[in-house]
Structures are given as structure tokens and as C-alpha cells.
């Protein structure tokens, strides 16, 4: 399935009943993204200056204090990741920004790349200082060709302005960044696969151990973070970790960029503090369901995320509440489906996506997706059998437990949750039941 991005109908924050916030999104559409001057004028690089005034250990401490968790989907505590990266010995270390935003329904990194690219490289530079890296890469998905070009311009002007290069801000800090294009594979968003891809190999995940932090790109110690994670970093240093962590909840600190899409009145990227309920997000920020239709279900976190029925939208948008309900924040995608959508048809499009994007390396993902696709096709055509329920459940488990990487492990989660919440729609598609009905 080729991902289609729903174009934002309106600007950020409009009609959001003041429930959105503007920390990492404050520059969106307010300045020329290619202009270093405008970025500086808006307070850009204050974060880096502050960070460079402290020791690398203090920088890491500050990130830990902010409670920031990786925004790419795995939600690993960023400070802890940096601390581990800093502890690895090595004369050459690498920082990579994962901008291979490929999760269907997700387009928040695109906004950051498009509207505030300097912030990303500022965050990367702070990371490089903290972990002792001298080389950086931004791996941007192939489909964001224009943003790759813009990023190259931005890097050149940061270099010219002394914010990148061999002697950053006169401190002797050395850090260079290269832009690398993806080649169109979803799986390259997985960090070890992304590294294989930068090395010029086909996109297939690596065995761990050795871990990326020890032997990553070209066998060198490597730190990989998501675009949004890096964009949060300058904010943390600009306003202080304490101030940043006032946003959100006790276990989900700060803010999150969400990609709201589907049958929603105002689709777009919004920055929200953790803790709003899904209802608030849908109705107060998104303006409710388009064309006055009723909400039927949501898919959270992208194609690999679970399906949630309309009855459960009072769950707060936090890591802890989501985990308790078998959901994941994932990439921050929130896809809205109204009453006209058939769950089974929707699941076919999700399954088609995974069948297309599995890299084929390991048995459970390659063959599991093949079989799940066959089964979902039977449900769509009304020729499924009662055994197909057991088969889905059994092989979804095999995929979850046995797949080599996250792609295969999470590919069946949407289907499982769909069957759990909308069993009737699947039962109707069983051959004999259909005849009676």
C-alpha cells in the first residue's frame, strides 16, 4: 500500500480550543525554514549554547531529568540511551537521525523537517556533544525528496554560520552531518536496518547483539534517535528540563506531536501535552468526525498499532494508560474511521501494507504475512471458515514471538485487536454464517 498523506486543511492550532501547545512546533509556519537568521531570531541555538556551557555528563543528566522518551515509537528513555552511548569507548562515534517516517498515517516528522529543520540539527549537535560523536547522518525517506534538498541547504548554512563543522561556536566541538536518502522500504525505519541501508546494503535488520550503540554504522558506536526526539532536545535546554517536564503526566513527560488523519474534520499535525483524552483530541482538536458521521474506530500508532472502538475514547493519551489498554503511542498516528468503514476491508488494506513491506528475511514475518493476507482475503470475499479465527490467533502469536524484528512482531496487532473489538463483522464473513444471514 502506498501511503497517502492527508493534507492539512488548516494551520496548526486553529480551532484547537487551546488544547494544543507550542514547544517544538512554535516555529511552524512562523519563519522561513531555510533561514538561519530567522531561526536565530526566534531563539534558535540558545539550547546548544546552554548545552555547550555544561559538561557532556551534565547534558545527559538534563535530558534524563526531562523524562523524554524516544518519539520514534519504542519510547525508550532518551537520557538513558545517551548515557549508554557516551559510555561506549571509541575514537569515532556516530549520531543518526531517523527521518524514515514510514508508518502509515504518520506525518509529524515531515512537519519538523519542513518547518523547523534547524531544530533537528541543533538537537543532533547537542547529542553529538553529549555522547562524543563527530559524524552525523540524517536518513530521510525517499518520498521526502524536497525535504532532503532543503535539509542539505540548511546544513550548509549551519556550517557556514559556525553551528556545524570543525569548531562549533568556537568551542572546538567538531560535528558534521550528511543527508542520506532512503530507498522506499518501511523496514528501514528499524534502526539496524536503517544502518544497513546507509551502508549501501539492502534493507534487512541485523542480529543483536552486537548492539548499535557498540557496533552500528560501519561498525562504529552509533546513537540513533527519531526526528521528533532530536527536536525536543533544544527545547529542553532552552526552557530547562524542569519546565519541559511540567507538561504531560507523571509517567509521560512533555509534549507529543500527533498526526491526526482519516475521517476527521481537521486533519493535521498537532502538538499536545500528554494526558489529553482521545475524545479531546478527536473532538476539541480535530473538530470531530467529518460530514457529521459517527466515529466507529481508531487506529493508534500507525499500521502496526491496535484498533480501538469508539466506546473507549476516554482513555488519556499517555504511555501508561495506553499500555494498560493494550495500545501503543507508537509514531503518534491517530487514524479516525467513521461508521461507513467496514472493519474487514480496512484490515485488508493494513495487511496489504505488511505483505508489501516485509523484508522477507525471516520465516515468521515473510510466511506469516503471506498467510494472514490469504485469511483476510477470505474474510473480505466471505469465504472464511471458523478455523480461520484460530489460525489468525495462532500465527499472529508465532509472528509476535518469533519474528526477527519489530515489523513482523507488530504486524498482526491491528488484526488481533480488530477481531477482539469487532468480532461480528468477521463472523458475518464466514461462509456458512453468510448463507444463513
Amino acid at each position: 500500500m502506498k501511503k497517502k498523506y492527508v493534507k492539512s486543511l488548516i494551520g496548526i492550532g486553529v480551532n484547537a480550543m487551546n488544547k494544543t501547545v507550542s514547544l517544538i512546533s512554535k516555529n511552524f509556519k512562523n519563519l522561513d525554514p531555510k533561514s538561519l537568521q530567522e531561526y536565530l531570531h526566534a531563539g534558535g541555538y540558545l539550547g546548544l549554547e546552554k548545552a555547550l556551557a555544561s559538561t557532556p555528563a551534565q547534558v545527559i543528566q538534563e535530558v534524563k531529568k526531562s523524562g523524554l522518551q524516544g518519539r520514534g515509537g519504542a519510547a525508550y528513555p532518551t537520557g538513558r540511551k545517551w548515557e549508554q552511548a557516551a559510555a561506549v569507548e571509541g575514537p569515532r562515534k556516530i549520531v543518526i537521525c531517523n527521518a524514515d517516517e514510514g508508518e502509515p498515517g504518520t506525518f509529524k516528522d515531515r512537519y519538523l523537517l519542513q518547518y523547523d529543520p534547524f531544530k533537528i540539527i541543533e538537537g543532533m549537535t547537542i547529542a553529538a556533544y553529549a555522547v562524543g560523536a563527530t559524524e552525523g547522518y540524517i536518513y530521510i525517506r525517499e518520498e521526502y525528496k524536497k525535504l532532503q534538498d532543503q535539509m542539505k541547504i540548511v546544513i550548509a548554512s549551519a556550517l557556514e554560520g559556525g553551528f556545524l563543522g570543525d569548531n562549533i561556536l568556537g568551542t572546538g566541538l567538531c560535528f558534521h552531518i550528511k543527508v542520506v536518502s532512503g530507498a522506499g522500504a518501511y523496514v528501514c525505519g528499524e534502526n539496524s536496518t536503517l544502518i544497513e541501508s546507509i551502508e549501501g546494503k539492502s534493507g534487512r535488520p541485523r542480529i543483536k547483539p552486537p548492539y548499535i550503540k557498540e557496533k552500528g554504522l560501519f561498525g562504529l558506536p552509533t546513537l540513533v534517535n527519531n526526528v521528533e526526539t532530536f527536536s525536543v532536545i533544544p527545547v529542553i535546554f532552552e526552557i530547562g528540563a524542569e519546565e519541559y517536564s511540567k507538561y504531560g503526566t507523571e509517567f509521560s513527560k512533555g509534549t507529543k506531536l500527533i498526526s491526526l488523519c482519516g475521517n476527521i474534520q481537521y486533519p493535521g499535525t498537532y502538538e499536545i501535552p500528554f494526558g489529553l483524552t482521545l475524545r479531546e483530541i478527536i473532538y476539541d482538536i480535530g473538530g470531530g468526525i467529518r460530514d457529521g458521521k459517527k466515529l466507529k474506530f481508531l487506529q493508534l500508532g500507525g499500521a502496526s498499532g491496535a484498533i480501538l472502538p469508539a466506546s473507549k475514547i476516554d482513555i488519556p493519551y499517555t504511555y501508561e494508560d495506553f499500555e494498560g489498554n493494550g495500545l501503543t503511542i507508537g509514531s503518534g498516528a491517530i487514524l479516525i474511521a467513521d461508521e461507513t468503514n467496514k472493519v474487514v476491508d480496512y484490515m485488508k488494506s493494513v495487511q496489504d501494507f505488511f505483505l508489501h513491506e516485509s523484508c522477507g528475511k525471516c520465516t515468521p514475518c515473510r510466511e506469516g504475512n503471506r498467510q494472514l493476507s490469504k485469511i483476510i482475503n477470505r474474510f473480505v470475499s466471505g469465504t472464511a471458515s471458523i478455523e480461520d479465527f484460530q489460525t489468525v490467533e495462532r500465527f499472529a502469536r508465532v509472528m509476535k514471538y518469533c519474528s526477527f524484528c519489530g515489523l513482523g512482531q507488530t504486524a498482526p496487532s491491528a488484526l488481533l485487536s480488530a477481531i477482539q473489538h469487532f468480532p461480528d463483522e468477521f463472523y458475518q464473513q464466514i461462509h456458512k454464517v453468510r448463507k444463513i444471514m
Partner: protein
Amino acid sequence: MKYYQITIDHKQITVPEGTTILEAAKLVNIKIPTLCYHPDQSIKANCRICLVEISGKDDLVAACSTPVWEGANILTNSRLVRDMQKGVLELILANHPQDCLRCIRNGNCELQNLCEIFHIAKSNLEDEVDALPVDDSSPSLARDHRKCIKCNRCIEMCQDVQGVSILSHAHRSIKYNITPAFERNLMDTLCVFCGQCSSVCPVGAIYEKDDTDKVWEAIDDPKKHVIVQIAPAVRVSIGDAFGMAPGTKVTGKVVAALRRIGFDKVFDTDFTADLTIMEEGSELLHRMKDHGILPMITSCSPGWINYIEGHYPHLLRHLSSCKSPQQMFGALSKTYYAEKIGLDPANIFTVSIMPCTAKKYEASREEMISNGYREVDAVLTTRELARMIKTSSIDFIGIEEEEFDLPFGISTGAGVIFGATGGVMEAALRSVYELATGTALNNIEFTDVRGLEGIKEATVVINDQPIKVAVAHGLSNARKILDYIDNGQCDYTFIEIMCCPGGCIGGGGQPIGSTLAVKEQRIQGIYAIDQDMPIRKAHKNPAVLKLYEEYLGTPLGHLSHKLLHTTYRARSEDLHLLSLWQKETASSKE
């Protein structure tokens, strides 16, 4: 070194840091099922059959790729593990042609073994076998992609061990497959036909072209006088196929079995190996004396010849012009032998039993024709001969040993060590030294050139002149030597190169399961035979000397040149592609 105390299936054990769960389990006699794992290769972890449970963590890890940690509590046979392993196996089976009874690997297939263990009587999965054609373009190997389970062992063999890099992967998801570039047939690539891929394939996805029918047909034809030669390496390997210990010498049993099968005469390639030494040794001395091109490189290994012709054609002049022992035998069989027994060469059918798939290709080369006749009519690998022996209802283990026929049955220890890496070099040195100096060699065992080290060197003083020689086996090692020559860093006079790791005892046509450990045992077997031989120098072989006296004249003489030497040519993928393209455009115009 750090040690970790771990528990596997309720049994405690202490193992060094870095030990994988798979290795640790072996120490407590737990054999975790594997499929992509191969003891001589890197860890791939892509089949996912070796998963084990971390107790109390609701998590499975691949035993092959996960090193143990302090306090690890591992379950290898919990309900979850068994369910998941069975599930993975079911997924593989749903994509695998289940024609085991017709498969060349029936009874010798790692997937079949797993099915036996897990017994999947029925599955709710829908079978879908990839519709891919069988590539039988080459005379050596056939590839049946449909059976491929994507373990990637063949790729590692082709790319890392042999450095030929013909096999790679293409596409993704359910189209993911193992293939030469642009999904060409093997014959349209610079494949060297070493067959090492077939020797590591766990299933029947790549295998030797079976020529046993062709041989049966000749045997059944009363007009044909069918003779057979056995390569040195076969006598220490074919026993594997009958459950004997690796490296067991079964020369007499093979001779007896071949007679029971119906061959008219059973000869020994060791004889022409001795002859090769006479010719190659003389060529070396000639090149050294006349400032010919040095280093000279051996030419017995057809996979190696294919490699240099395809990948380093500018160095072809370094190759000895000697045909391989197989082809020397073939040439003599249609000339000297035909004359001697008074038969029309047209009625002589010459078969060779080789540890090698590339020998099939070699025998089919256009240069390999003597006296107007194809020198070798059929080449069987060790695996095919084992099949013929079984078809012939022969109790191989029990069969009484017999002797080779004359005149090509007399050989020396020099001939037999051709089967192991370093053997040709050692055999050559034994003779070259004595032929050049006229004095007897005291210590004939050149142990520096023996063993599984990738590149071995030795220096021999001949007439007060130190001669530096080298031995390489496995084409990635050959490549290093060729690069030395290219860079002008090479001070060797003579080099032995064998295509396959370990030499012919590790050939691509040897019984399945030729691991490094097995190869070591075969090498020991080869040198044990050498040690027991009454004559151990090629130039002392009375039958070889008689051949020169009666027929050939002198080494490098006119008749030798005609029958025992050959020429080489560059193999170009591009040229071949051009002809393919022309063929395609011609057919599209029609």
C-alpha cells in the same frame, strides 16, 4: 575470561562469556532444533526455529544468536517453545513443495528431519509454493528455487568463502529469493560450478545434476566398453554416505562395488595424478630454466580454472597448461588404452567418479576432445555414485575389497594426496626436487603445505636455490594470491590452488555434511593412505614410466603436448550477455 552461571531446562551449568544458548545447550546434551544454522558459518538467525523461552519473561530469543548472561534461566521445551517452533515449521512447509519422495535430498534433508521431530500431521494453513522455474542450464548444478527456505547458507558460501558472489538475494517479502543478479540462470553468470552451495543447502534447492541414467544406459549397452576412474578424494569420503566414520579408507570397497555395478574396467585417477606430476613438474622446471612465466599455478581444479578464466583472465598465462588428471585419463582412454586393448574408441565409454560438480563442466568443454572423441563421457559425483551403489543393492560396508585393473591401477602416494589441499604441491616437490638435483630426497613429507590454513607457504632449496611456493584453497584465498601477483608483490615460483575449501576432499560433490571437522578426518585418511604406499613419488611409478616408454615418449614431448595439455580462454559475462541479448532481440523480431 568471565564465566556465567546459567540454567537450561532446570540444569545448572557454568559457561564462558560469549557462549550462545545453542552452544551452552549442547553442553548439557540438549540439541535445540536448527535450520539456517551451520557449524562452519556465521550466525544468521533467520529461520527462527531455534527459539527458546526466557523463564518468567514471556519472551523468546533465538538460541543461535543470543549469548548467555549471568543467571539466564532458559527453557528449550516449554509449551510456548514447542508451539512456536511447530508454528514456524508449519509456515515453512506451507511454502515448500511437499514432494519429498521425489526429491534428490529425500532421507538427507534438514527440513525433513525437523518434520519427523515435530510431526505436523495437518495444518490449517493454505499451501502456496512459489511458481519459479528450475534452473538446469549448467551441466553441473540444478537450482530449484521453489524448495529454497531462504537460509542464506549458499550466499555465505558463494560470497564470503568462495568470493565468487554469484548468488545473492533479490526482492522482498514473499518475493524474496536467492538468485544470481537479475535472476539469470547459472550458465549465464560467471558461476564456477564448484557446487559448494549444494553442499551446504539444507534442502533440495540446489543440487548436482544427476548423470546416473546416462551411465546406466552405457553399462546396459552391450556394444559399449565402459571404464571408470575414481578420484583420490572419493576413497575417503564415500563411506560417509553409508554411515561409516568420516575419513575411512574404502578404496577396495569402491572398486568392488563398481565391478558389481557392471563397469568393465575399474581404474584409478591416482595414476594420471602421477602423470600430471611428470608433466607439470617438467613444465615448472622448463619455465624456471627458460625464464618462462612465473609463478606457475596448478590447473587440476576445474572450479579454479573457471574462476581465473572468468575473474582474472589477464593472469591465464600463469596457469600450467596441463590438463587435470581426470582429462588426462580421458585422453589416454580414447587413445593409448583403445590401441592397447584393440577397441574402437567410439565404443569406449569413459566415466569418472569425482568429488566435484565442476568436473562435469570441465568434461563438457570443447577443448576436452582427443582423437576426435570426448575424453570423458560422464562424470558422477561421490553423491551420485553412492546412489548407484544403493540402487545396485550392494552392501557397501560388508563388500569384500578388490584391486584396481591394470594398466591404470598402479599409483603412488603422490597421486593420492592430490585429494587434499597442498597435496599437488607436495607431490610435485617430491619429484621436482629429485628430477632437478638428481639426488634422493630424504624427508619427503612437506608438512608446511598440509592442513586447513587458507594460504600456506614453504621454501624448498633446489640446487642451492631457495624456491618459494604457496598453496591456497577456497577461492577467496585464491583471490588474495592473484591480487599479490597483480600488485607485483608475489615472489612465489609455484602455487597450488584448489577451488574448494580443504581441496578435493571438501569438493562440492562430496556427501552432504562435509563440515570442517569431517574434512579434517578425510585429510588424515588421505595422508594415512600415502604413508602406507610402497611408492610415494610420482616419477617412480613404474606404470607411468612404461607409458612414456611405450607411447608418450618424454614429458612435454609431442604426444604429451597433444593429449595431456590444453589451452584456456577468458570467460566473459558481457560477451555471453551480448549473445543472449542478440538472441532475445532476434526472437522478438520474429
